[in-house]
């Protein structure tokens, strides 16, 4: 039994109404495809920070980062620290993002066409969409699980609740594109942040810092504070996460879309430096919630599922009135993520995968129609794949694999495209093939063959190796292709 009351329901309903109305109202400002996909490149600094932070924090993020806190203690927040460093350095130096934004492209594969040709642009678009949509496919159900456990709602209504939520998000995203995403992200950032901060202070007040520290010390010893002394982490975990998060900062579609929608390159870079510290909060705040769950819940209450420990704990300690703020905050987090993911991956389908069909320039009206249709189809895909289809197996491995399929090759291509003159289509093709096949091969070897235990124990070593091999594939492939006499 949780403390979700009529007052809480009213807070959530009011939040949903205001967001939907705001999202739909800005549709009248959309006149061109550029308005729809990159908000006419009129996004300024503070709106960019709100939008990037809101997009990168969904319920699924909250669940896994809390699980990291529950399973690894404070050391579980290390990926957040690494993302902060990567994003700050990329924003400060302009590494890759400056040439990318200066080029005036709408998507990363569009930049690749200038260096590697149209086939690599198309292949990159396919890999990006495949990795991104499969990654996003599990968001709805995980979000639903959180809301059911926190609010004490009947789990039988999970599918219906999340379907209605997705339809609401899809309506304003289809009508207003990036403009609706930015305006609703702004509102969602405020609600989400208020909820995260208030609940964290409440937990610190009720549980106490000493209890949190002692709980981590008791369960994990020094390894709960130092990732290098944690049995499940170590150097390979830190290096893999540094590579993974740097690649995400450079190429993850929802992040880079903010640089591309910024009014100029300097603003795009400031959005990165200004948002960078949020990524520490993104891991540390839910991590503290996870540690609090470890401190407060009995093994019977956890029932062997560390993923649901945090929402169960919140359902028990958050009082009526504040529960509404928490649910509204988490809905805000999820809606901003869903809308942005649908739009930005839809933009790659339209701009890059459909590029061969747009050799004769399309009218703005036709372009907008197709963009809206693609988003509606992504919504249908999410509904079928993510909600009504129950995924078997380990979700965390699933997210890591689908992410790496895309991140390893796209980050290598982007760096080579921006800074290596000798890079060419052979190297790009080799990197894309290796980046797509190696994660799948690793997953297969974890399940089949004589060395399954080794591959399971050394999954982060394999992850680091994939990035190194993809980079080598780019170098060797590029060097093997005969140089043009014009170069």
């Amino acid at each position: 039994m949780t403390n979700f009351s009529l007052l809480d329901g009213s807070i959530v309903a009011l939040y949903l109404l205001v967001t939907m109305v705001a999202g739909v109202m800005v549709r009248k400002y959309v006149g061109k495809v550029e308005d729809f996909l990159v908000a006419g490149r009129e996004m300024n600094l503070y709106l960019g920070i709100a939008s990037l932070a809101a997009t990168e924090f969904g319920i699924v993020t909250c669940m896994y980062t809390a699980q990291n806190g529950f399973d690894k203690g404070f050391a579980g927040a290390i990926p957040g620290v690494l993302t902060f460093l990567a994003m700050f350095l990329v924003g400060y130096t302009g590494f890759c993002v400056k040439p990318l934004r200066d080029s005036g492209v709408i998507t990363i594969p569009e930049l690749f066409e200038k260096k590697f040709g149209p086939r690599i642009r198309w292949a990159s678009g396919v890999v990006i969409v495949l990795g991104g949509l499969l990654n996003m496919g599990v968001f709805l159900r995980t979000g639903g699980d959180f809301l059911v456990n926190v609010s004490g709602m009947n789990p039988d209504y999970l599918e219906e609740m999340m379907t209605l939520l997705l339809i609401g998000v899809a309506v304003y995203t289809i009508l207003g594109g990036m403009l609706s995403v930015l305006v609703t992200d702004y509102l969602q950032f405020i609600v989400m942040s208020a909820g995260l901060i208030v609940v964290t202070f409440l937990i610190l007040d009720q549980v106490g810092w000493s209890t949190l520290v002692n709980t981590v010390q008791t369960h994990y010893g020094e390894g709960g504070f130092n990732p290098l002394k944690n049995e499940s982490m170590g150097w390979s975990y830190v290096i893999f996460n540094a590579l993974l998060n740097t690649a995400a900062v450079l190429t993850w579609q929802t992040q880079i879309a903010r640089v591309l929608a910024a009014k100029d390159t300097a603003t795009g870079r400031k959005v990165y430096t200004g948002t960078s510290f949020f990524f520490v909060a993104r891991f540390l705040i839910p991590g503290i919630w996870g540690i609090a769950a470890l401190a407060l819940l009995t093994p019977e209450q956890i029932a062997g599922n560390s993923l649901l420990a945090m929402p169960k704990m919140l359902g028990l300690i958050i009082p009526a009135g504040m529960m509404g703020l928490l649910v509204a905050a988490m809905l805000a987090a999820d809606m901003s993520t869903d809308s942005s993911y649908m739009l930005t991956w839809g933009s790659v389908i339209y701009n890059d995968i459909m590029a061969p069909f747009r050799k004769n320039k399309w009218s703005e009206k036709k372009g907008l129609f197709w963009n809206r249709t693609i988003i509606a189809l992504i919504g249908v895909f999410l509904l079928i794949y993510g909600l009504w289809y129950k995924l078997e197996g380990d979700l965390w491995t699933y997210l890591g694999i689908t992410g790496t399929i895309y991140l390893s090759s796209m980050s290598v291509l982007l760096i080579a495209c921006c800074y290596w003159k000798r890079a060419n289509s052979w190297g790009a093709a080799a990197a894309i093939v290796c980046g797509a096949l190696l994660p799948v091969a690793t997953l297969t070897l974890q399940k089949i063959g004589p060395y399954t235990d080794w591959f399971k124990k050394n999954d982060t070593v394999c992850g680091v190796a994939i990035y190194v091999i993809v980079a080598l594939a780019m170098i060797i492939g590029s060097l093997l292709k005969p140089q043009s006499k014009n170069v």
Partner: protein
Amino acid sequence: MIDGIINMLQNHWFWELLTLACLIWYSTITIYVAVKGAGDIHNMLRRLTESKK
């Protein structure tokens, strides 16, 4: 409150300092972005309206 913070800093100062920095930064940036972001939306929509004329 002060005693609590001192107690925090005596135990595993890195995570305590990071948690404090996180909560202070996040609270501040939320208020700052809430105020400045509204201006950004207003200016963005104004410029889009002007560009259509």
